[in-house]
């Protein structure tokens, strides 16, 4: 088996060849945009293994949950019960307003801006292994109808956006990632701003917002920020988080500050993927107009 080949290629040249291969791959990405067969091969080898590991992790997590004491559970139950009461009151009030809104919208012949989006649940099976970015892999892919640019939620808040799709997995870039940038608006005043992830804030799970116009609208800490209607990739009105700090920029024209997201990015296990993209909605509304 170990026959030394006398005229082997020196490793210098192999290195050179590999560097050229990498260069070509880097360049080819510009034109092909996808990873094609490589991605396919990876998705049938790595993803099942990640699935396995994460399901063991989930099982162990459930196991530790079982050891919670009765006292803790009682307290939690009480807190939840009171929250539920508040919610019920809120809900009835909101429902009344909803009926009123629908009636008025009908009068004005306005389309519903955002109905209930259809969602698919998925498990988070792996994170980004580098310390630079915050993205993760979920266990649903194109076979389950997931497409790139679909919005991802957890609980009530926005988590991120699908960037890549394989047959049985999808990659999601979190909103706290350094490369993430979302057009958002303050719910109460409808002022637009940009919400950007930042490496410096990633570890505390906060995000920064910028370019909020410094107009007469008074915006206070604790107000809600949602995705805006002008975003080309994010559906309108998805809850991002609460403003935790706000200050006027030195140019006196804009305001900026920090947002505490509605989602805890450290313990993300299950997410919901909205199965319609903004582009779908735009296309369907355009078709509607042509008819």
């Amino acid at each position, binding site marked *: 088996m170990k026959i030394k080949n006398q005229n082997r290629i020196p490793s210098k040249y192999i290195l050179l060849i590999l560097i050229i291969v990498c260069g070509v791959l880097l360049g080819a990405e510009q034109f092909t945009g996808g990873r094609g067969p490589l991605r396919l091969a990876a998705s049938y080898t790595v993803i099942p293994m990640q699935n396995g*590991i994460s399901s063991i992790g989930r099982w162990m997590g459930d196991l530790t949950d079982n050891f919670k004491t009765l006292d803790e559970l009682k307290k939690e139950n009480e807190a939840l019960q009171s929250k539920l009461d508040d919610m019920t009151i809120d809900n009835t009030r909101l429902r009344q307003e909803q009926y009123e809104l629908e009636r008025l919208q009908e009068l004005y012949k306005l389309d519903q801006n955002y109905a209930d989006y259809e969602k698919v649940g998925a498990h988070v099976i792996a994170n980004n292994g580098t310390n630079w970015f915050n993205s993760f892999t979920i266990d649903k892919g194109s076979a389950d109808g997931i497409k790139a640019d679909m919005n991802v939620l957890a609980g009530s808040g926005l988590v991120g956006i699908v960037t890549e799709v394989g047959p049985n997995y999808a990659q999601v870039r979190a909103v706290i990632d350094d490369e993430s940038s979302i057009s958002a608006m303050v719910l109460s005043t409808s002022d637009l701003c940009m919400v950007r992830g930042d490496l*410096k804030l990633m570890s505390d799970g906060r995000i920064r917002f910028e370019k909020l116009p410094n107009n007469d609208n008074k915006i206070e800490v604790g107000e809600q920020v949602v995705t805006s209607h002008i975003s080309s990739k994010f559906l309108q009105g998805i809850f991002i988080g609460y403003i935790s700090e706000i200050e006027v920029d030195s140019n006196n024209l804009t305001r900026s500050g920090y947002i505490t997201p509605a989602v805890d990015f450290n313990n993300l296990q299950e997410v919901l993927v909205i199965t319609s993209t903004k582009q779908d909605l735009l296309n369907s509304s355009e078709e509607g107009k042509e008819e």
Partner: protein
Amino acid sequence: MKRRIVTIIFIAAAFLLQSTVFGRLTFADVRPNLMIVVTASFGFMRGENGGMAVGFISGLFMDLFWGGLLGFYTLIYTVIGYLNGTFHRMFFDDDIKFPLVLIGISDLVYSSVGYLCLFMLQGKFIFSYFLGHVMLPELVYTILATLVLYQVILHVNRRLEAEEQRSASRFV
């Protein structure tokens, strides 16, 4: 053949651990870089070609699942594997300090190139933050992880080498 399978298992295990288990075992909000430990160790244990091959495969794994551009991590890891391979002649397997230093330097090189290409070139001049909160914690944690992982790699490598020598002498 057996060596190849074992090597691939090592790369896959490091990749899976880093992306799943160590995501929960972060320390100062960083996780250790096991891929660099595997790449560098195989580099100085097996020479330039071995290091390059391991680096190429590790980098490809990372590019496919963690990266933005295909080929970026592959390039860094291939070169790191090769450079570690050039120290093959100075490597004696009873000394732990030398591998630790090499792995540490490899991790620093990887982080610096990452900062340069992925942050600085985008106009994010946050080097002091990056150094203090990402690079150095990662270095420390990686070295801690090396103390365990390296022993495993070393042990397996010794057994494989012994086995290869035995089968070679049997045929001669």
